[in-house]
Structure formats: C-alpha cells, structure tokens
C-alpha cells in the first residue's frame, strides 16, 4: 500500500481527518525546509505538501507568489526540492510527501528522470497545477510506473463529466479547490463545499482534500466535518513570510498554526461522534 493510502486507512480507523500543510520548498531559505517539515509533522500534520518554486505561479495569490520569489532568491530548484525530501525521509519514513508545482520545471528535467528520482527519494504524490489530465497522459504514465500518485485539482465549476475524467486519472486523493480564484483568496462557503463533495463522492471512492480559504482552527474544523483532508497553504505561508527575517523561529511558530488547526479538527470530530 502506498504511504498516502496507508495514511488515509489509518485515519479512517481512528475517525480522524487528514491535515495537510503546504509550504514552498526553500522559503525563506533552503536550510529551513527540512526542520520545518519535521516540526509540522510533530504538530499534527498527516501529509506534507511541498511546493516546487516557480517564477510564474499563475494560479497562486500574492502570498505564495512571494514565497516562490523568496525561494528563488536562493535558486531553489526541483533538484534541491528532491534533495530536501531525501533528507526528510532519513528521519521519517511514514508521513506522505506530495510535491506541488507547475509543469515547466518537471518538463525541463524530463518526465521519466523526474519520476524515477522522486520515487527514489521518497516522494509519494505529484500535483502539477497547470497540467489537466487531458494534457497529462505521458506524465501520469511515468508517475504510475514509479508508484507515485498523480493528484489532480477539482473546482466548483468542474462539470460532472470532468469530475469523472479527473477522478479516473487520479490516485491517492483528489484536491477540491473550494472556491474560484487563486490561493489565499476570500472566505469559504462550507455548505457549497459539502454539496459539491457529495457530487464528487458519487463518482469516486478516493479521499477528498479541500483547500483554499482555510485560515484558522474554525475554518479547518468546518471543512474537516465534510472532507477527508484539510489543506492549509496561504495562512501558513504568510506566517512563514512574516518571519523571513528570523528563520530560526519559523518551525516552532508554523507548528503552532498547525497545532491549533489539529486541535480544532480533532475536537470537532470527537464532538461529531456523539
């Protein structure tokens, strides 16, 4: 069983939901990333999403754009990101790691070389934001061959036919983008999310992660009530950005953000069981 599937099986048995923090690799400095990953796991993260910095992050709001810019100041490349995962895996062989980024760095490295290297260092899933399944057959085949889960986005305006097509191409989990817009945008309509998740569950048994608009314990708990996983990006990354001048403080303070969400989600699931 893949690390991602094992993770969701474990959580399901425990009646808990997955908490998935997103951080951009190399932000604000490459030396911060691996200690930060460990701190997030200790604070209650179940899966880690590691962003591959890109010069033109078209689907991201200002918070993650700036994280990319900070990481690129130190020339954090896809190769460095893979090295960070290798280093993380030396001390943690359980927590799944999903790489999230844009296609061009992967395309430049070469799909086969990338997939082989990612599998070798202990990556579990890959989400290329600007690669819909229609354009993705070649990369998907490479990922599958190396037992990596291709993870795709679903959006509020994805038609039923597209939801079906995307779920057929995906494994591990699918990632529902809870609102139209870029990362870090406005607030969240939990009821609309619940309605759409019902539609998605009708066509797939894959766990569903929900991201965009989750910024604190309360919104995390509300999403956890309807989803299998809660993805937290901009709220965490903006905390990291604010501490860019004092990188030593980042692991502990970022962990505090995640710990608060963890508590809220677990409390919610306990009260939900009653």
């Amino acid at each position, binding site marked *: 069983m893949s690390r991602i599937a094992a993770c969701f099986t474990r959580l399901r048995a425990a009646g808990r939901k997955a908490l998935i923090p997103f951080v951009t690799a190399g932000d604000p400095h490459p030396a911060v990333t691996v200690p930060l990953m460990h701190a997030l796991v200790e604070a209650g993260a179940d899966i880690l999403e590691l962003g591959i910095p890109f010069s033109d992050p*078209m689907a991201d709001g200002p918070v993650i754009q700036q994280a990319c810019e900070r990481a690129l100041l130190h020339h954090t490349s896809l190769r460095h990101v893979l090295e960070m995962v290798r280093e993380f895996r030396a001390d943690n062989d359980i927590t799944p790691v999903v790489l999230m980024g844009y296609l061009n760095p992967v395309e430049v490295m070469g799909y086969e070389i990338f997939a082989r290297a990612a599998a070798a260092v202990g990556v579990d899933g890959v989400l290329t934001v*600007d690669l819909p399944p229609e354009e993705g057959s070649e990369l998907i085949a490479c990922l599958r061959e190396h037992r990596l889960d291709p993870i795709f986005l679903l*959006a509020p305006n994805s038609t039923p036919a597209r939801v079906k097509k995307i779920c057929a191409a995906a494994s591990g989990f699918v990632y529902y983008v809870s609102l139209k*817009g870029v990362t870090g945008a406005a607030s969240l309509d939990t009821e609309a999310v619940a309605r759409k998740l019902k539609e998605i569950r009708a066509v797939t048994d894959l766990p569903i992660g929900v991201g965009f608009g989750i910024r604190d314990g309360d919104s995390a708990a509300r999403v956890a009530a309807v989803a299998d996983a809660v993805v937290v990006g901009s709220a965490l990354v903006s905390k990291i950005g604010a501490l860019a001048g004092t990188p030593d403080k980042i692991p502990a303070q970022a962990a505090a953000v995640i710990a608060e969400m963890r508590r809220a989600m677990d409390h919610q699931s306990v009260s939900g069981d009653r």
Partner: protein
Amino acid sequence: MSKLIDSLPDANGHFGVYGGRFVAETLMEPLEELRLAYEKYRSDPAFLAEFDADLSHYVGRPSPLYFAERWSRDLGGAKLYLKREDLNHTGAHKINNTIGQALLAKRMGKTRIIAETGAGQHGVASATVAARLGLECVVYMGAEDVQRQAANVFRMKLLGARVVPVTSGSKTLKDALNEAMRDWVTNVDHTFYIIGTVAGPHPYPAMVRDFQSIIGREARAQILAIEGKLPDALVACVGGGSNAIGLFYPFLDDESVRMIGVEGGGDGVASGRHAAPLTAGRPGVLHGNRTYLMEDADGQIIETHSISAGLDYPGVGPEHAWLKDLGRAQYVAITDDEALAAFHALTRIEGIIPALESSHALAQAAKLAPTMSEDQIIVVNLSGRGDKDIHTVAAREGITL
C-alpha cells in the same frame, strides 16, 4: 506540402506538439465555454457581418499596402511594400483582435473586460472597444512598463479603463499576463479576458490568429491587384506573434512565399540579453501553452531584454513554434541597434515613423532586399506607428524632450 490553412490546431488546440491547454482546473470550463462560443460565432453570418462592418467603419480597413519606393531604391534590390497597420484606429494591428473578442464577449453576456499589456497598445485597443461597447475594463500592466509607457497609461485612463500596475516577478508583460489570469480565475462568471496575442491556452492562439488574419487576406489581394503576382517574402516582427501570424496565415499554402519572423535580439543573441525564444530558447510550458521559451536550466522563466516593450516577452505563440519546426517559416533576431537604425531610415526616407516593434521587421527587410532582384517583392508588416516610442528613442540617444 499538404494544405496548412485550416489544418490546425487539432480539437485540443495542438499545433504539432505545441499549444494545448495547460491551466489550473478552474479555467478549464471557462475555456471550453469560450471555445464553444467561438466555434459557434466564427461561422455565424451576423457576427461576421458586424465584425467586418466594425473593421471598415471603426478601424478604417482595409489598411493600404504601400510601395516604399524611395526606400526600396535606396536599399537596391527587391521592392518593399508596407502593410500599413499603423494607420488603423489606435495605431496598431491590435485593434483587429480586440474588436473581434469584444463582440464575442458581448454575445456571451460578459460585462467586464480584462486585458494584459506590455507596450500599452493592446491595453489601449482593449480600453477602446470596452468604451465603445460600454463594458467595464481593467488592464494589467507591469510596473516597469507603466513607467516606460506613461502616455499609453494615460490614454487608457482617458478611455475609462482602470490600469493595474503589476509588481510581482519581473514587473513586465509576462507578469501582467499572470495577473490577468488570476483575475479571470476569480471573476470568471462575468469577465471576458481579451488576450492580446496568439499565445495562451486553446482557443486563444487560433481565435486571435483568425481575427488578425484579415491582415494577410487583404495584403494577398492587394499585392495581386497591384503587381499581379504573389510576393517572394513576408517579414513581420514576433513578440507573441499576432501581427506575424495575421500576415503569414493566408499565405501558408503559397509555397513560393518565404516567411520570416523577426524577434527582439536586444543586445545580441550571444549576449544572453534578448527576447528571442524561437532563435535561442527551447520548448517548455508557460501561460497555458507549450511553446518555445526563454528559461534557465531549472525551468524558471528568465527576464527578457528588448528596446521594444511589445517584443519583451519570454514565450511565443505555439503556431510559430510549429511553423519553425516545420521549416515553413524562418525566425531571426534583430538587435536594438539595428531596429533603431531602421526606425530612423523609414522616418527619414519615407516620412513614416514606425513602432519600435515593427522596426525590427523593417531592419530584417533592409538586410534581405539587397540580396534579391528588382523584380522580387517583400511585404513587411508595419504593425504599428511609432509615436508611443519617441520618448524611448530620445532617451536612448541622450535627448531630453
């Protein structure tokens, strides 16, 4: 060679391995909605009649095909004809496309127009059609370009558009495009994104080409009427490549007609400071399509350099990438200095001040003409007028206005 016109893109927007639709999921449905609308209206007689009427009465088409007799004699060799897109309303070819897309926006019930712009010509052309149709208009422009093109910024504001300076990344055209995409993804229900060039996700490259191909259709008929034969070569500048594809496309199946696209060579291709992805870049994925890009070894997009803001773009339309690989068109780079020399030559010899973008095409034509005989013909796309560039030229030459 098999027939090229109407052969591509395929159903998924591919020109060979180029083009396609590389966007986040939220944009997939809006792009499909746009494709369906465009497929419907591109053969709708009422739509086409309105488009043609606007091109005649609002843009001022057909634009003349002007024989640059003195300049041809001066260079010695082929006869040079200039397709005068600089005489269009708003001063460049950009308006052909914005008229078409705005008419489509209206039919799709969209009330808000957004656009990206580099030099400001596409922004002005978008603000112009938005004013005429009473649509809200927001133009994204790199903060650097806002500084460089103050007159066009004011023009857009006069026309009622809101100009948003983009401060992310390199603060130029590519970043403006990123920001416009972000706006679109957020406001997609009522907003129409008018992309200004033949790049971006399907159906933009094909749609913009179709709207711009009026340039080549007219030029083809005009040269046949004037000279009784087809030209030997077509020359046009290539940033994203909309004026070039507009001229080239109707000639694609005329095998005797050479096509030369001219990229911004900046300080020279060897210097690394240029904007010539077809000449010196390699294929990758950016802004929704696979095409030639300026990128580093890690796949990060690198900053481009050109005296002309309209050519200062790290990608290029996917159809050009395909035409290059196919060998149907050739692509070369012209340096800032060569473009400036051509800018002055045309101004002094023909009394026409060309845009710096178009000056790149003129410089290449000036190299080519003396290698050809006097009974041969070159058609150059004079894609825009140079009024917007006089401050750049003056500053470059140490003159304070």
